[in-house]
Structures are given as structure tokens and as C-alpha cells.
């Protein structure tokens, strides 16, 4: 009995040891990012990455925000920040709205052929971007919105449709079916039932969808690179320009500050929403 208790305790120690060691590995880059951003270039050149900054300063942060050269100009990443915001807002609202409407139509009204449409959409979720990107460029150019804000928003809308529709369809399918019957007996039409009954009940899923979209859109690189146009480049594209295309000496402290600034929004969203974030991933992943 005592032997079992002892080995159980050792096992417990082992579990915590493993987890703490793993946590250290995972947190290490964050630690390094932060410390590097507060150091001076001299300190970085002479020192090593694990050391704490001797005289922490915000110079690198200021420079990253308003002075770094992003290829187009040298105004820092703040331009990219506002671009990302401008891209994000419609790219979050529109897909969520459309996804909710689609999910509602497919799960409650079950129109003929709806299952086929949904099936093709689900297959579409797996199509690599590279297959779709050039035809989309051509299409947008033909309409005249290539390399513009509407251009990037439309692309985000297209790529968000599978996951948004899936999330809402599954959620609405889990609501009691008799609610729909009662609403139909009461005479509610398609849109009235949606606005007065279904939307008010959608709050949990709206939150999950918003979190997933914010993260996805903010962190996107390839679509922003291709479709947004020079004036609307999102923060991720500018970040890559700052770091990988500068000539002369690389300002590592500035680079790290810029990286943290670029990751700030989704990290903040994650830290605040924690559980919802995981729910969203799980809901989307477990098809």
C-alpha cells in the first residue's frame, strides 16, 4: 500500500515535471521575443538571446510602430495595423452574417438540393488556395476590384464560407425542431423567423464565429499579399517586408517588437476568450 502511494507520488511529480518542461519550451519564444524587443542593438550584438535586457527601453517599439521600412514607405507597421483593421471589420461581419443565413436555410428549411450544395462546399474547404488563387485574381481583375479593399474582403468571404456555414448549420440543427414548426404554424416567413427567432438565439455561435474570423483574417498573409493592393497591405505582409526585405543591418529588437505588435490582436482575443476559442476550433474541426 505504501509502495503504491509512493509510486503514485513519483508519477505525479513526473506529470508536473513533463508539463512544466513542455510549458517552458512553448513559452521560450515568447520570452525571447519580449526580451529582445526591449534591448538595444548593441546589447543584442554582444549578448545572447536568453539574457534579460539590462536597460529595457521602448525605442524599438516606437520605431517598429512608426519608423520601420515596409518596402513601400518608412512609416512603421502602424499603417498595416489600420489596414488590417479596415480589412478585418467587413471580413468578419459579412461572412458571419452570410454563414448564419446559410446555416439557417440549410438546417431548418432543408430546401431540395441543399444537401448537395453543402456537400460541395465542404469539399471546397479542402481545396488548396493555390488552386483557386489565380482564377480569382483574373475574376476580380475582370470585375475591376483586384488589388483593392473590396477585392480582399470578397476573397475572405469566399474562403470563410465553408467553416462559417458549417458552424451555424450544426448549431442550428441542434436546436429543437418543434420551434421551427411552431413558428411556421404562427405564420412566420423565412426572414421574420430568422431575425426575430433564430438570430436572438445565436449568441454563443456568433461569438465563436467572430473569434475564429478575427484570428483567421488578422493572421492571413497569402490572401492579403495577393489581393489587397499596395495601399491596403495588412500587418502580416508589412511585417514580413520589414524583417525579410531590409537592406543593411537587421534591427532585431525592432523586428521582434513588430512581430509582437502584429500578433497582439489575435493573442489578446485568445487570452480574453480562451474557452470560446477552443470551442470554436473543436466545433469546426469535428465535422
Amino acid at each position, binding site marked *: 500500500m505504501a509502495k503504491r502511494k509512493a509510486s503514485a507520488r513519483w*508519477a505525479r511529480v513526473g*506529470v508536473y515535471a513533463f*508539463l512544466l518542461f*513542455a*510549458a517552458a519550451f*512553448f513559452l521560450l*519564444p515568447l520570452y*525571447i521575443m519580449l526580451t*529582445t524587443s526591449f534591448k538595444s542593438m548593441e546589447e*543584442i550584438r554582444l549578448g*545572447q*538571446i536568453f539574457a534579460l535586457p539590462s536597460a529595457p527601453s521602448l525605442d524599438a517599439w516606437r520605431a517598429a510602430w512608426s519608423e520601420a521600412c515596409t518596402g513601400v514607405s518608412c512609416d512603421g507597421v502602424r499603417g498595416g495595423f489600420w489596414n488590417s483593421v479596415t480589412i478585418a471589420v467587413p471580413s468578419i461581419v459579412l461572412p458571419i452574417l*452570410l454563414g448564419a*443565413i*446559410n446555416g439557417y*436555410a440549410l438546417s431548418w*428549411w432543408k*430546401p431540395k438540393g*441543399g444537401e448537395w*450544395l453543402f456537400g460541395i*462546399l465542404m*469539399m*471546397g474547404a*479542402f*481545396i*488548396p*488556395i*493555390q*488552386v*483557386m488563387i*489565380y*482564377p480569382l485574381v*483574373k475574376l476580380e481583375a475582370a470585375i475591376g476590384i483586384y488589388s483593392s479593399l473590396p477585392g480582399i474582403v470578397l476573397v475572405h468571404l*469566399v474562403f470563410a*464560407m465553408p467553416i462559417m*456555414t458549417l458552424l451555424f448549420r450544426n448549431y442550428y440543427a441542434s436546436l429543437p425542431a418543434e420551434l421551427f414548426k411552431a413558428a411556421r404554424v404562427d405564420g412566420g416567413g*423565412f*426572414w421574420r423567423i430568422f431575425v426575430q427567432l433564430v438570430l436572438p438565439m445565436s449568441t454563443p455561435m456568433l461569438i465563436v464565429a467572430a473569434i475564429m474570423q478575427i484570428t483567421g483574417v*488578422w*493572421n492571413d*498573409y*497569402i490572401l492579403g499579399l495577393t489581393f489587397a493592393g499596395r495601399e491596403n497591405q495588412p500587418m*502580416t505582409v508589412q*511585417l*514580413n517586408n520589414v524583417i525579410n526585405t531590409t537592406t543593411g543591418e537587421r534591427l*532585431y529588437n525592432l*523586428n*521582434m517588437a513588430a*512581430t509582437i505588435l*502584429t*500578433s497582439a490582436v*489575435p*493573442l489578446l482575443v*485568445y487570452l480574453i476568450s*480562451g474557452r470560446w*476559442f*477552443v470551442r470554436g*476550433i473543436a466545433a469546426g474541426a*469535428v*465535422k
Partner: protein
Amino acid sequence: MKRRSLAAWGALLPLAVIVGVGYVGTVLWTVRTSMSSSRTFPRDDFVGLQQFERLLESERWQLAIHNLAVYGALYIVAAMVIGFLLAVFIDQKVRGEGVLRTAFLYPYAMSFVATGLVWQWVLNPDSGLQNAMQKMGWTSFEFDWIVDQDMVIYTVVIAGTWQGAGLVMALMLAGLRGIDEEIWKAARLDGIPTWRVYLSIVLPMIGPTLATVFTLLAVGVVKVFDTVVAMTQGGPGIASDVPAKFIMDHLFARANLGLASAGAVVLLLTVLALVAPLAYARSRQAAKGGH
């Protein structure tokens, strides 16, 4: 009854257009282009499978595929094993679960670009890990993989695993938590050691979760682009090139639409091959009365 369908289809019209044009249309276009000799501009001719032959002969493509295979195998194994272990250990009713989960999942909230950039910095031999170890006294420590043509792809694996293992952990934890408490009680009564329960009882039970995670990771592997661009720019030279980057480069910079489209079609087929078994299994399960 017919009126019902009409109203719903009216609302679904945008989706139908997106699916028809954006998804089906683009795939058809790319497949068509892959069988033409398009270069900077699309050409209407038909050259059969010539582009695919040229693709297979291209040394750069071969390297990209090789990199993808290496990256894919290592990344998936590492992410699944580490993710599973993390999930199992956290499932042991440890204290501070919230904090731990945050520590493992926050990388997933960061963009691939940021991930690539951070790890580029950490693994930089002159100022990163190698330099730090040497300065701390371990003067013979070497870790210059990121500038080594043969080893650079492994650095991408490290960065990718760091970002993806947390997601695997979150999904596996959800799967583990779905297992009935009573199974544990029954196992305890039978005197089975914990690790054995996980291996022989739990693992088979979360089979569907494992399959989903594997498919998710595999699809992500095929699409890997941002991380490589940010971390190594495909270098040194083309040593860490991957198919997605190959295609993008040939679509835009190198202006060879036909070849790039062929590459894209190959990518698509690979993804379909990965997804098909899972989809088949799901539909069989649904027919048996799963959903």
C-alpha cells in the same frame, strides 16, 4: 412546400454563386490551364499532360515534394505525439490547467508569419540559440541548421510543431474528456495501470478524434506556405522550398501559369487522397445511424 424551398434558395443564392464560381469554377479553370502551355497569360491550347511531365522533371519541384514529405511526416508525428502526451498529462487533474493550456495554445493564435519570424530569430546561428549556448560556456555547441541546405527543413518542422501541438492537445483533450468516467472506474477495479488504460482502451476509443486531427494536420502540411516564406524564404537557395511556394512563385514571379497550375492540380489530388478515406468512413458511419 415549393414556396418553402423558393424562399430558402433565394437566401442561399450568394452561397450558390460562391460555390459555383469560386470553388467549382476555379478548380475547373486551373485544371484546364494545367493542360495548356500558358505562360504569363492564359493560352487556349491543349497540350495534354505535358506540363505534368515537365513538373516531374523539374529538380526544384522534386526537392519541394521531398521537403514536403519530410516535413509532413515529422510534423504530423511530432505534433500528434506531443499533443497527445500534453493532453494525457493535463487530463490527470493537474492544478493550473487553465494556465498550462494557455501556454500550449497561444502559439496557435499567432500567425504563421510571426511563427516563422520568431523561430528564424531563435535558430539564427550568429545571434540565436547557437550563439547563446556558446556564450554561456558551451563553446562547441553547434546549431546552424537554418543555414544548412540539408537540415533547414527540420527547422521548419520545429517551428510548425511549436505552433500546432497546442491545437492537437486541445482537440485530443476534448476527445479524452468525452470518455465516460465509468470506464476509468471499471479499469481501476480490474487493477489496470493508468498508462495501459490509455494505450489499450482510451486510444482506440478516441479513434475518430485521432483521424480528424490527422486529416487536419495533413491538410495543413500540404498547404504550408507562410511559415516557409517568413522563416527561410525557401532557402538557403531553394533548399526549403515547398510545393505551395513553388506554385505561387511560378504563378506570379516566374510567370508560368501552365506549370504552376499543374503543380496546383497535383496538390489538389494529394489533398483529396488524404481526405477521401476520412469522408468515406464518416459517410459509412452516418449510414449506420451515427448522425
